[in-house]
């Protein structure tokens, strides 16, 4: 864990991703559900100023029968043209966004890695067969296929949506993993392991997978990012049905079509979901880059050494300080 934490990118990434997860898990319980007509229309963000504005109010709430001070928020990020809070919409769309992203990431990773690794490691007929399948999936025209599938299925369940939107994503990943595995398979240490008579699962698990893990991670994150953009895009174009604000793309679409680009008083409606999308995808990328250090054996070795070193310096420092203190006395 410390390895990850020592890297600034990973730190920022982890905080962002964790923040969104917390927002998705506990947010909906804390923030009121967005409803049409719950507030005045097109209220600006931080109404009345960030300090001393009308958007917050110090009250008290009872927690296990004890009255504790509490801050009540009144549409802190403003409202849209039908009187729904912007923050409320962002928060309540988060669980669905995360579910969709996670299912897409999982789907692409599991399918891509297993098929790619199987093809690369086993070679021969299996490789030929799987490679053909991969090639076919890769050459299908992606966007038209997506539009047709979306029109046919009209997916509302975020899991289904995530899988549909990343239906082609696994093929590219499998292709890349296959070639990686092919290279690693013929390295001397894998051959040595084979010569030592280690079982295939052991070799794959101990020698091959750690070597492709960074690659898998970055691909997974790319798939997740892709599905964010794809869903936002499809909602923005109005190709997916929605009954409420289920996706930040819905917000963007509504904001844009109601003049979010034209007037200042609707700008927050457009900006807030944009910022959310940027932060989440940036968080994912940074986190994946940071994870590189965990999985990459060479980087990990170097890190282990530096962290070891720092511990040593610390331990040597203490007596020195003790000595100097003695000197002072």
């Amino acid at each position, binding site marked *: 864990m410390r390895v990850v934490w020592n890297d600034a990118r990973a730190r920022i990434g982890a905080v962002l991703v964790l923040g969104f997860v917390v927002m998705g898990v506990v947010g909906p319980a804390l923030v009121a559900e967005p409803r049409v007509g719950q507030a005045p229309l097109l209220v600006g963000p931080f109404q009345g100023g960030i300090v001393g504005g009308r958007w917050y109010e110090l009250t008290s709430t009872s927690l296990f029968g004890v009255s504790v001070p509490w801050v009540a928020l009144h549409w802190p990020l403003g409202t849209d043209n039908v009187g729904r809070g912007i923050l409320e919409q962002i928060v309540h769309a988060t669980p669905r966004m995360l579910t969709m992203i996670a299912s897409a990431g999982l789907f692409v990773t599991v399918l891509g890695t297993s098929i790619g690794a199987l093809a690369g490691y086993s070679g021969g007929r299996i490789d030929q067969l799987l490679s053909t399948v991969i090639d076919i999936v890769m050459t299908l025209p992606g966007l038209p296929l997506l539009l047709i599938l979306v029109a046919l299925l009209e997916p509302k369940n975020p899991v289904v949506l995530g899988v549909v939107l990343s239906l082609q994503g696994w093929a590219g990943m499998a292709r890349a993993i296959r070639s990686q595995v092919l290279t690693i398979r013929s390295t001397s240490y894998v051959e040595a392991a084979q010569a030592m008579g280690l079982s295939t699962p052991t070799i794959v698990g101990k020698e091959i997978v750690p070597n492709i893990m960074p690659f898998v991670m970055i691909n997974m994150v790319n798939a997740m990012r892709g599905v964010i953009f794809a869903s936002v895009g499809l909602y923005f174009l109005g190709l997916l049905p929605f009954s409420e604000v289920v996706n930040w793309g819905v917000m963007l679409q509504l904001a844009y079509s109601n003049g979010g680009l034209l007037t200042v008083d*609707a700008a927050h409606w457009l900006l807030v979901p944009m910022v959310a999308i940027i932060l989440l995808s940036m968080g994912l990328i940074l986190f994946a880059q940071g994870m590189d250090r965990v999985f990459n054996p060479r980087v990990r070795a170097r890190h282990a050494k530096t962290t070891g070193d720092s511990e040593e310096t610390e331990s040597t420092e203490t007596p020195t300080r003790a000595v100097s203190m003695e000197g002072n006395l």
Partner: protein
Amino acid sequence: MSEHRTGQAQRQRRKTRRRFIQSVGIAGAAGLAGCAGSNRDAATGGDDESAESDNSSTGDTTAQSTDSVPMTDRTFVTATTNVPKDMQFNPYGQKYPERAALALFENLLYVNEATSTFMPGILESWDIGDEMVTLSVRDGFHWHNGDAVTAEDVAFKLKLEIHDGAAIGNIVEAQDVSVPDDSTVELGLKRAVADEVFLYSLKPIALDTPRSEFQEFLDAYENDGEAPGLTEKTLDEPIGTGPFKFVHARNQELVADKFEDHPDAGQINFARFNWNYLQSNQKQWQALRTDNVDGLDNIFTPENISESYGDHVREIQMPANWGMGVMFNHEHEHYSQQNVKQAIQYVIDREKLAQTAGGKMHVPVEVPCGLPGNFDGSYKEWLGDSLSGFNKYEPNTEKAAALLEDAGFSKQDGTWTDENGKTLEFPFKIPSGWNDWTAGGQSIVQDLNDFGIEASLNPSQSYFDDIYSGQKYVVAGLGWPDGKLYPYFSLNKLLNGFRSTTILKFPRSAEVPPIGEPDGETRTVEFEAELEELAGLTGDAAKQKTQELAWVVNQHLPMAPLMEKVDQAWLTTDDWNTVTQDDEDAIVDWPPYYLPREGKLTAKPE
């Protein structure tokens, strides 16, 4: 944007009408009581004449006697949502630009939609009798190729319309159109009709079919009864009759120059009309904000956008006599049930809906009965004392629940399901890009979901294809009234017209209890016969029949009427002299096209 599509709907309707009429046969004797109107009508025709000459004096101070406005080189720039290059100026084909056509072609007559006052166009006056209508053609109109417009041209156009299945065909047979002299057309009526019914059926007709191009199709109709090539006919360049003559249509713009041989040319002091292709609401708002257009014919504009316009941008609000309703597909197992439709009408909070869709532009329907006029309450006059008997469908989820339970539905896990365990869904399809409806749709969907109906909002880009060819929908949003204040038209649309028969698949007759007694003894109402009867009635008899049919709508809800809207037209005043919406000529479709004819939209000297 929305009104634009109703034109498309009208064309679709015509095509189907044609088939429909053939099957109906000729209903000879229907109108009985319509006699009283004829003399008054002659007077109305006369009034219109004088009204026209009054126009210059009743206009505000910026108006405009014929020779007081010096000519300028200005171009009036506006917007079109049709790709100019793809426009087809054959009114029977696809891609006819309904709105730009108002500048290129002259309508037979014009209507002030707020008061249902008819104003002369090609026709100078009209005399509507019981058996015969006499139309007088105004002198001085010319086709853009130089030929004078004669009564023959009008008769030709009317025959073509009748053969093509236009509304006028329900009243007049093609062979009963005759031309006694160069400026008179006489029409023999199948039966007596109310003046409004006759005149409104002329309203959509413009003189846009030069005989040199379209004669073959009328010949085909007269010889074979059909003219299959008519919809495919293309014209390289339209030969118009309006005050502006087509110059060119390119990818991004349509251009027309002032036509000097138009009788109103003296009122127009600018040289050119230019339509920029601005396909979405956002683009049109932006163009008006940045002064890239001088006016827009009709576009929904939310308050925050209109407030961002400069002071020189003037809004003209016009009653649309039109607004959002829910279309039920009566072939659907759930929405063919009266109880389900009534439950939906009970659940949707129309007040909140109108507020959400844009409070100033929409009013909720007070009594869902198929009569427009919720802005000024004029529907109440038609309903008279029977009003109290009508169901107002004030939001009431308990009544809705009782109705659904009666129909065999039960609530399981918070969702209504029918006897077979099938959930009651409400996939609400609306045209994409209609901002006010998208906002309103979310309010509807929320109300229904709260109640336990699985509702979703589907803004669709292929909306009109889906609805008109194949009726691929369960529930959809579309205008419920017909754009006219006179109630016959909306009732006909809901109970008898193309919308009712083909799109809603509403039954052709219904069992209806007496007004105000939902549990009373029922009688069978045959819609076609009763609406034909209503078309011929005037005065109290028309009122009585209107109430009976409105009651059918109130009970059976072919559509759920929800809102009525105002149309918003926009004109800029920095380079243009124009009138406000208090001027009666401003409330004619649409100000940028009609006002120049009256000299009430003129260019300021450069």
